[in-house]
């Protein structure tokens, strides 16, 4: 049934119903799964992948600021030996840093003990016990690298495959390629905790793609989606009467001008009305068991911990709630959920701030992985932990710190990220860095490679997924990228 037939039917229905004084219920169901929303006019109509997908949805955990891999994911005992020593000039000669002074910088060992987790014995920080308990589902990549060494370009590269502003976000690409199974919720949702994202909402934007593919930011206070609620003074009944009349008038106009765009407009208003119902249901956690709330730590507080980098104690409950919401969203067919947490930019006070962030994130992320697994969702839900770069094994000594070295600078040459679920082979470490974690020693994985692999898991060939803008066929992986076969189960 195409849009035209629906409208023809609808007009008849409308006239009949108007005569009987019946509202628009029949109409709403007509626009349902088999109706307009499934027709080609809706760009978010689900589409098949290019080949058999392993992942159907993604939860993209983004740790903004540059997570310190030498403290959390990539143990370097040698650093302990060399602590306080300079690096040979040859290693830093051609290297650009954001703040670090090459002449006087010294290696800084991690004070945090590492532990072996799971059957695989994966080494991660002792500050990540919950994540550690999921080690056998995680594929940890210790050989990530990027060209970007400043935050916003780096974040853009990690979210859009390019350091330049204006390209579509990864969630937009996936929705563009596959559409969204959810008819009541956006296909790409963004949840934030901690400090506000430093690049505004540019990382989640659909760039030059239509805006329907852009990330919709859910808010932690007020309306979850901007302008979701009826304005003050407008009751549900008033709105309902108004929308019925609106639909009928649009249908009358359609009868005159015959433009299928009007049918789409009617469908959009129907969908908006459904979003008004389904979004509060989604964000209402009262149906979750106390065990679940407890596991995610939804009601935790900061337990006296403090951070220098914004967010404040609210980050604890907000991040936990975001992880639980992400599960509820993927259950309801949302294709791509980004959970953005800031900030991990630990130029100084690394010890206290890193502990704070680990406490914020470790328990909820661990709970999310286990919850997904228990519900049978992990096998086709890809979970990714990402950051724009890592941090230097050298202590940061910018002049304004007056000799107090308590953090690390940006390190794009070798850092760690992980993925789990959705066709990923867990319980393994990919790649290796040299003994101080400066350079990659084995199996480098570029951001474009990581993206190529993510798309591959979705059943998409990154070289064939293109969008033409300004006469050029753009890709998420720009002109590079290769799938990392070791990551695949």
């Amino acid at each position, binding site marked *: 049934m195409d849009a035209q037939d629906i409208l023809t039917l609808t007009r008849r229905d409308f006239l009949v119903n*108007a005569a009987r004084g019946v509202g628009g219920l029949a109409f709403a169901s007509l626009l349902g799964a088999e109706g307009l929303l499934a027709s080609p006019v809706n*760009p978010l109509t689900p589409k098949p992948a290019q080949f058999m997908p392993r992942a159907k949805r993604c939860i993209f955990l983004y740790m903004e600021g540059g997570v310190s891999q030498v403290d959390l994911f990539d143990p370097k005992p040698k650093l302990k030996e060399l602590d306080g020593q300079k690096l040979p000039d040859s290693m830093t000669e051609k290297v*650009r840093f*954001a703040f670090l002074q090459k002449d006087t910088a010294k290696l800084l060992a991690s004070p945090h003990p590492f532990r072996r987790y799971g059957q695989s014995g994966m080494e991660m920080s002792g500050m990540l016990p919950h994540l550690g308990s999921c080690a056998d589902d995680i594929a940890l990549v210790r050989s990530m690298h990027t060209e970007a060494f*400043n*935050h*916003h*370009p780096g974040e853009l590269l990690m979210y859009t495959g390019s350091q*330049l*502003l*204006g390209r579509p976000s990864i969630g937009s690409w996936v929705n563009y390629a596959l559409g969204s199974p959810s008819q009541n919720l956006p296909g790409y949702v963004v949840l934030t905790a901690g*400090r*506000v*994202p*430093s*690049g*505004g*909402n*540019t990382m989640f*934007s659909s*760039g*030059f793609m239509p*805006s*329907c593919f*852009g990330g919709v930011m859910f*808010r*932690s206070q*007020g309306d979850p*989606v*901007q*302008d979701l609620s*009826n*304005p003050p003074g407008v*009751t549900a*009944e*008033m709105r309902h*009467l*108004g929308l*019925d*009349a*609106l639909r009928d*008038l*649009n249908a*009358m*106009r359609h009868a*005159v*001008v*015959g*433009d*299928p*765009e*009007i049918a789409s*407009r009617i469908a*959009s*208003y129907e969908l*908006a009305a459904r979003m008004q119902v389904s979004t509060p249901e989604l964000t209402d956690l009262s149906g979750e068991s106390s065990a679940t709330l407890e596991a995610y730590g939804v009601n935790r507080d900061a337990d006296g911990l403090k951070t220098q980098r914004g967010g404040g104690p609210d980050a604890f409950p907000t991040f936990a709630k975001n992880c639980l919401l992400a599960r509820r969203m993927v259950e309801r067919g949302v294709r791509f959920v980004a959970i953005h947490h800031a900030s991990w930019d630990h130029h100084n006070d690394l010890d206290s701030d890193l502990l704070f962030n680990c406490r914020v994130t470790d328990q909820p992320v661990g709970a999310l992985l286990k919850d997904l697994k228990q519900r049978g969702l992990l096998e086709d839900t890809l979970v990714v932990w990402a950051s724009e770069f890592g941090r230097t094994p050298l202590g940061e000594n910018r002049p304004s710190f007056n000799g107090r070295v308590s953090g690390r600078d*940006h390190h794009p040459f070798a850092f760690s990220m992980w993925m789990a679920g959705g066709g990923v082979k867990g319980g393994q470490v990919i790649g290796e860095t040299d003994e101080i974690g400066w350079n990659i020693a084995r199996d480098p994985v570029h951001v474009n490679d990581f993206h190529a692999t993510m798309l591959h898991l979705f059943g998409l060939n990154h070289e064939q997924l293109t969008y033409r803008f*300004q*006469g*050029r066929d753009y890709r998420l992986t720009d002109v590079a990228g290769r799938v990392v076969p070791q990551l695949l189960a």
Partner: protein
Amino acid sequence: MLLLSSVSLLLAGGSAAMSATNEAPSRTPQHWAFVPPMIAKTPSIKNQRWVRNEIDRFVLARLEKEGVEPSPEADRRTLIRRLSLDLIGLPPTPEQVRQFVEDCSLNAYVQLVDSLLASPHFGERWARHWLDLARYADTSGYQIDRPRPFAWLYRDWVIDALNDDLPFDQFTIEQLAGDLLPDATIEQKTAAGFHRLTLMNHEDGTDAEEFRCKAKVDRASTTGTVWLGLTVGCAECHNHKYDPISQREFYQLYAFFNNAQEVDIPAPHADDPARFERAKKAWNGEQSRLKTQLAELTQANDPKSADVKRQLARHRRTRPKNAEAKAESFLERTAPARANIHVRGDFLRKGEEVGTGTPGVLPPLKSRRADADRLDLARWLVAPENPLTARVAVNQVWQHLFGRGLVNTSEDFGTRGEAPSHPELLDWLACEFKSPLSLNVQRSTFNVQPAAPWSRKALIKLIVTSATYRQASRVRPELQSRDPQNLWLARQNRLRLESEIIRDISLAAGGLLNDDIGGPSFRPYLPEDVKKLGAAGAFTWTDTEGPEKYRRGLYIFAQRTVPYPASMTFDQADSSQSCTRRDRSNTPLQALTLLNHGLFVECAQSLGKRLVAMPQATTRARIARAFELCLCRPPTGQELARLEQLHRDQTRLPRSSTEAESLTALSQILLNLDEFMTRE
């Protein structure tokens, strides 16, 4: 006519022969867009009576070939709304509609066109199209996203230039090289701010050179997109894969911008002193109000005094400054412009050094001195022998009047772009635009003076007075399978309006619109959490209060990292790169915005009040008035009945609506109609 056509044929042929001597091995002159446009023999057609000007001959020839009749002319109400929205972006008043409908004179339509072209709002409407190409914004982008407090000087220059109908060749020259013109005026230097609208990253610890290079890459590729319709940016890292543009040629273009130093020049604006005086007066008023309030509260020992104290402190920080406006411009260095090729696009890997130059596939560049500079580049773009610039420019104009260019890929006239739907018409328009030679029916009938060269107003007038433009936009089911995209132009297209225009017409319907032209951008209300998103708190967004907040969408402060959400929902162009055509998406978020966003609710309430205020009017009369205000037409009987039914239903609700609430609800329906947000 014949004679004139052959002259231009001769001219075109001459230039082709001239450039052929400079043929580079990579040339593919057979691609249509690299061959200079020529005035083709006007096609012969049967239905002479339908034709209003030359455009129609080309369109009708195609229709007759397909055996398709054109659509009838749209009714007058549709025509006046269409024309007003297309030319000034504002709806006509019910009175203007009535006059036009009742005007039986032969040239009523042309007079309407002339008056709209003469309206100062014309410049606003068409400036917005140009600002999309110019990637206009009020901040510099990336993490810090620093405000550019006088970016609007450039925006206002564009508005003025369009209102003055500055010929497109001069418009081009001033924007690319206004600073290099002899005795350049402040306005010309301001115009050169076109290429200052690139992004800049002020994040701590960045390598400034990296972003300077990115800006210059953007300048070269944006120039290619906007004037040549070529994707020269594809040759940044390697030779172009499809078009004859080498990486070396890309860096020759880049070299033109390598010598241009960014400078901010004092640019006092005529309006500054008056604006400052107004702002100062308003500020003083608020200051004394707060002081009085504080004194009273302190006297009464009211704890609210602490609040007022804080308000007063905040207010002190907003004291208006009599700023000496500074326009963003360029200053050319004296040494000849050179650039190194960036190996694989990496600015750290410097390759061969090149001088300035233009792609060899196009006619040669004539420079004033040994080394060509930006002024030479600008003049080369608008030289008569350039095969692309005029075609690209007329196509952009066509696109805004039909929703789709004659070349659909208005950004790409290269070998990978789409072929023109009406190649002869495109060429005829391009020639007519550059040098209006040909006689046309319209002129002989109405005794119109020949147009000036490169006049956009003349071009727009030519297009909107054609029978092609004036057709009804009703979809023709019999053509849906044969011509689903309406490429043959057997009807007009129905176009959802742009984000700014939806805002403007909603404000206008509510009687709230402040149609002041120009000046600093304003900041509409944003929820606190969205405000905070901006630049990680590097600067604050203070909602504009008072009548300024009802200004046209064109003047919304464009913050690159947090584009105004309600505008983005309606496909506003992303200001980080040049955008030649916007999407027209149709999403549930648009519905939520128009139904629930504070501004649109306010417009509905305000329209409701206008209806309530009608003395002794029946509900029918009020509904009819709302239709006139929103859609420029009376309701049909069916529509009227349906809305009357709504009005009755509302009074039967458990908590029955007041008359004001009912009429607000009714107004809201009109402001959400597909027809309202569509140019038919």
